[in-house]
């Protein structure tokens, strides 16, 4: 599994990644799209990651880049 930018988050990230891959392949891709049993692990991983991103000063750059992406999101959603 790919490593996290924050080594201290690697353990929780691996747990979350494993959970996600199982849910994605066994449930989501087979049409059971509603539930997501990995929510709790993801929330723990996000807490760890966001702390690290803030310490590294990447969080504000990330916010800017996400704003740039939001217009494309709208484009995507207009499809179909």
């Amino acid at each position, binding site marked *: 599994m*790919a490593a996290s930018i924050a080594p201290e988050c690697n353990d929780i990230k691996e747990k*979350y990644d494993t959970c996600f*891959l199982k849910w994605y392949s066994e449930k989501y891709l087979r049409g059971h799209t509603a539930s997501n049993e990995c929510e709790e692990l993801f929330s723990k991983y996000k807490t760890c990651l966001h702390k690290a991103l803030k310490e590294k000063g*990447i969080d504000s*750059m*990330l916010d800017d*880049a996400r704003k740039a992406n939001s217009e494309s*999101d709208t484009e995507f959603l207009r499809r179909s």
Partner: protein
Amino acid sequence: MKFFENVFTYDYSFPAVSLAYFLRYPNPYSRHVLTTDVIDRYVDPKTQRLHTIRLHLKKSKVPSGILKLLPKGMGGSDNSGQSYILETTIVDPREGWMESESRNMEWTGILSVVEKQVYQRQPIEGALYSLEGLSLDDKRGEQTTVKTTVTFRSRFGQGKLLGRRKTEAIGDHNGEIEDDAPKKGFFSSLSTAGIQRTIELIGVKRTRDAVLKSKQGMNIVLERLRNGGIVGVLEGMRQDREAAFGHEGPWKRVWARGHAHIEDDDN
């Protein structure tokens, strides 16, 4: 502005390709990808589409050809050899498509690279699609096409007004434009358009290699997925890592060990 476009067909089902996409790092062709993190992920309650935002840290230097064009110190001094890439993905498993967009987050004033990919399930004549019971890789005949479009835009040396007008047309963010303005003075004697074209061309050249490598990496992951499922992919990653880095992890490369283990390494 320059474009790179490529259409490729994977001999794998759409669910397999979309899973491989999220599982693709690390692979033997992705040694330049240092870390991958999930910033956000949710299922849109209306559309049931899965939205994912990931942050990749990649080893990447400003190409020497571009460095030569920059004033001393610029692009060089703060070029740590690493760059952040933001990747946004939307998957629609019912309609059988996935779209992704990746963009560089730094030095976008020199060269902004935006890669868009559209993955699309290819219907097989006479086949019935029902999601119920759809196995990840049952239909050996099923194919998935991917259309890759990469846009290069150098706003190098552009003034504020020109930058803003272009920005609105293309939908990029405005944060970088102010940065560009003071640099203009350095290049008053040079052709700004010429420098931009050169920077964009170097970007296109590098992208050809990158797109090929990314396909090769995806194919390895897909093959491992077909042969051994997700466990097979993870085992492959473990072996790659040992072969490349030894047991010390990516931060302490053991080159001797790597060479001893890869006999057909033609690098």
